[in-house]
């Protein structure tokens, strides 16, 4: 479903701040793969997701989603294939617009925006049913401005918006990191439900190793702009945090994972 071939990205090339964030990453996801991504700060996790989403274009290599080469497509055109939830709860929704208006915007992802009405009655009923799944009482507040919602409510809404039109690929960039533990667990739970229900091909970054082990059918660990570890199937099911740290040390010859990532 997703095919990343040998991509490179260097920021501030030619200056003292030069930073090679992606150093030849190749990754292939089959349809329905739920891949968790871990790694220390600056390992290239978010950069990888942004490269796929098209926040900027990569320096080298190619990215294919569901057979379509998107390497040179701008962000808004790739959005047709991609659902996204950001780390910052403020990023994924339009605060000054109503809940139902936000959903209506997401419902038209990948379609041309015409002069037809922005939201109709039939949709509204559909949204009400979908909001009930989140179990946050949002179905009774559909005309409230999204800016009035809490961070957790906004992330849950963004998740719903990302999956409203079934995406070929779902990108979750530490989408629970800014939430308190209880809310984070709720949003993660909703994530698991939606991904399983729609059999979504998913890339999820997390800072929490336990979450990374618990969710998904495959785990990759990034280090210095490369994929350092790739564990799937039975091996992933039996994984523990200690195993993970040990295998990371073997793969990279580094022990920095211990302190850097356990703390995170």
């Amino acid at each position, binding site marked *: 479903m997703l095919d990343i071939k040998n991509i490179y990205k260097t920021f501030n090339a030619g200056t003292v701040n030069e930073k090679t964030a992606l150093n030849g990453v190749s990754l292939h996801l089959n349809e329905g793969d739920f891949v968790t991504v871990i790694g220390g700060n600056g390992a290239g996790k978010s950069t990888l997701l942004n490269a796929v989403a098209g926040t900027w274009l990569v320096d080298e290599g190619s990215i294919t989603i569901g057979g379509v080469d998107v390497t040179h497509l701008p962000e808004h055109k790739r959005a047709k294939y991609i659902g996204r939830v950001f780390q910052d709860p403020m990023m994924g929704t339009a605060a000054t*617009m109503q809940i139902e208006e936000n959903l209506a915007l997401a419902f038209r992802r990948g379609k041309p925006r015409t002069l037809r009405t922005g939201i109709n009655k039939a949709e509204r009923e559909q949204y009400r049913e979908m909001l009930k799944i989140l179990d946050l009482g949002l179905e009774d507040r559909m005309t409230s401005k999204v800016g009035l919602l809490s961070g957790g409510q906004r992330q849950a809404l963004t998740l719903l918006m990302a999956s409203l039109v079934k995406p070929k690929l779902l990108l979750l960039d530490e989408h629970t990191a800014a939430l308190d533990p209880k809310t984070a667990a709720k949003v993660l739970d909703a994530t698991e439900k939606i991904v399983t229900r729609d059999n979504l091909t998913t890339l999820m970054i997390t800072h929490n190793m336990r979450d990374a082990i618990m969710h998904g059918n495959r785990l990759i660990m990034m280090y210095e702009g490369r994929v350092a570890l790739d564990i799937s199937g039975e091996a992933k099911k039996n994984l523990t945090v200690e195993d993970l740290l040990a295998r990371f040390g073997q793969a990279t010859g580094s022990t920095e994972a211990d302190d850097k990532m356990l703390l995170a």
Partner: protein
Amino acid sequence: MTNLANFIGALPGAISQGLIWGIMAIGVYITYRILDIADLTVDGSFCTGGVAFVVLFSGGMNLWLALALAFLVGTLTGFATGLLHTLCGIPAILAGILTQLGLWSVNLAIMSMKANVSINVIDKASLNRLLVSLRFVQDVAKGERPVWQHPIFVVGLFTIVIIAVLYWFFGTELGCSLRATGSNPNMARAQGINTDFNKVLGLMISNGLVAVSGALLAQYQSYGDINMGRGAIVIGLAAVIIGEVVFSRIFHNFALKLLAVSFGSIIYYVVIQAVLSFTEINSNYLKLISAGIVALFLSVPYWKDKYFSKPVKRGGTQNA
């Protein structure tokens, strides 16, 4: 008492002017509030609309066609600013200033390098072709013209039609995507919205309205001159802010918010008229006063936030 009589006598004219500038202020609302861009093109495009209309109309063109062309020329100025901003990556404020500066020459060129152009209103036949005119205000007062030709009525109707069209537009898929672009461009792009296209479109619509407002003012005062747009952005912001301060508690609907902008512009002109009627102030100080008032209103939200904000009630976690 002569001051009061003077003020009351001048009210219809002040309200007419306020309504005309109100259309420009609605254009400013689209960029400043909906797109979150402070667009300084308006100082130039207001004048462009005015002088283009006068030149076309004086040349014998049909009034409605001349107004439509003024709108079109206005959209072109917005297009220029939009391209400078999106295609060339120039910050929006600077892009607007560049267009505004360039338009100064363009406006002079439209007037064949003269500083002003006028409409012949001495000739009755020519005057009667106009839609709005300062003279109609006096004529209606004297009973020489039907009331429906009063500029307040005509421009009021104009405003209502414009608000109705904008209300419809911003409720469409495209209009919603424009609002999302201003509200959160990251979210908009993630939902497949071409934010660059939308910014250009918004700037075009806004400046089209600003140019129509300029055309109406030129018609009203029967001339257009190179300085007629000077400080327009400040008047526009004043109208937007006054409208919000006065009406935000009662007007929640989008159409009513636009109406509030128009009312804000009327209030602005009535206050200016009051200052002129009741004080001996030299009218050259008006721009300084306007700038001061707008600066004050713009700083109020900041000060409120900084020194008078109440702690936010927490307790959303169990609902989150």
